[in-house]
């Protein structure tokens, strides 16, 4: 194969997937762009955005891959229900890790900004926001990933190629939308 042939093949293969994920990313941006008031009210929140988005991808991308491997290996039955011990273990672990890492990010972000002498919201505010965001976005993403992967598999689709795009397109959007929702809730409950 010549350089030109390799490049043309790679370009054609990647373009549709990237277009879909770019659209998802733009809508996540639209929500973030509308969060100006919340970002001003909670100094340190913007610092947490990349960590929160990456954690969604890392945790729930891995959950999708794990369930996909389980289905391929026959460890999880295609007629699976939530009572399946392995599926439940994988889901609980993903939720636990998602919440733990989100809260750890809030604590580290608070420490970092305090150390640098930059303005930062109270630790309790940041922890409450990341805890609720981790839990709520986790429940939504688990539902999306399990539904798409299991139902896709039953219809003869390869779960390995389904899980990635589902998490990249929904993960950012769900992550930012739940961040907006929980920040408003925490500000309303705590009066800022």
């Amino acid at each position, binding site marked *: 194969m010549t350089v030109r042939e390799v490049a043309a093949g790679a*370009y054609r293969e990647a373009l549709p997937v990237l277009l879909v994920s770019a659209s998802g990313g733009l809508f996540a941006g639209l929500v973030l762009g509308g969060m100006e008031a919340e970002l001003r009210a909670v100094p340190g929140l913007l610092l947490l955005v990349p960590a929160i*988005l990456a954690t969604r991808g890392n*945790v729930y991308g891995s959950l999708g891959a794990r369930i996909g491997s389980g289905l391929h290996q026959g460890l999880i039955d295609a007629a699976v229900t939530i009572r399946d011990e392995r599926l439940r273990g994988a889901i609980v672990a993903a939720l636990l890790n998602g919440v733990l890492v989100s809260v750890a990010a809030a604590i580290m972000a608070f420490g970092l900004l305090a150390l640098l002498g930059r303005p930062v919201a109270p630790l309790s505010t940041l922890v409450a926001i990341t805890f609720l965001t981790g839990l709520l976005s986790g429940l939504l993403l688990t539902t999306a990933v399990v539904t798409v992967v299991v139902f896709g598999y039953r219809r003869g689709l390869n779960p390995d190629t389904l899980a990635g795009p589902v998490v990249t397109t929904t993960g950012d959007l769900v992550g930012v939308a739940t961040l907006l929702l929980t920040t408003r809730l925490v500000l309303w409950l705590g009066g800022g």
Partner: protein
Amino acid sequence: MSPDGSTSHWSVGAITRAMLPLLLVLTVIELGSGLVLDALQETLLAYPTLLILVPVTIGMAGNLGSILAARLSTAFHLGLLSFDPTDDHLAGNGLATVALAVTLFPLVGAGAWLLAWLVADPALALATVVLVALTSGVALAVLAVLVTVVTTYGAYRFELDPDDVVIPIVTNVCDVLGVVVLFGAVRAIV
């Protein structure tokens, strides 16, 4: 039953022990890009159009890097790859990454401007936003190629399976580079 299939391997404790340390390391890396955003906060809040560009730039950078990494890993496993700048697979995939960035980032810039225009005052000219997006995209594509090739070569030298190590490293490093490059483009153009 294989150790991989035993129920204990799927227990909450086992999965957490395998995942949590890596997740915490990746979070520290991501907080690095958060610090860059924090330093840029005033500009981003003054121009919501630029705020719209943040998640999509981060996402596209990680995606360009991870697709390139997956393709190079496969070429490497098939024995098709040699680490020579004139190698067909290396040069072809690198070229495709830059071409994808040149195609997609102006669209992303225009999309961000259009969304901002629909909901509020975009505050910046369409051409400015497209230029910020294109500049960031081309710089990111070149950096993604360099990071991916160096990481894949490192995995090969240390006899590690590129599938295990290259994709997480490249995706998260490209996330950080996405924010840093966007910061540079905003400072230079806006």
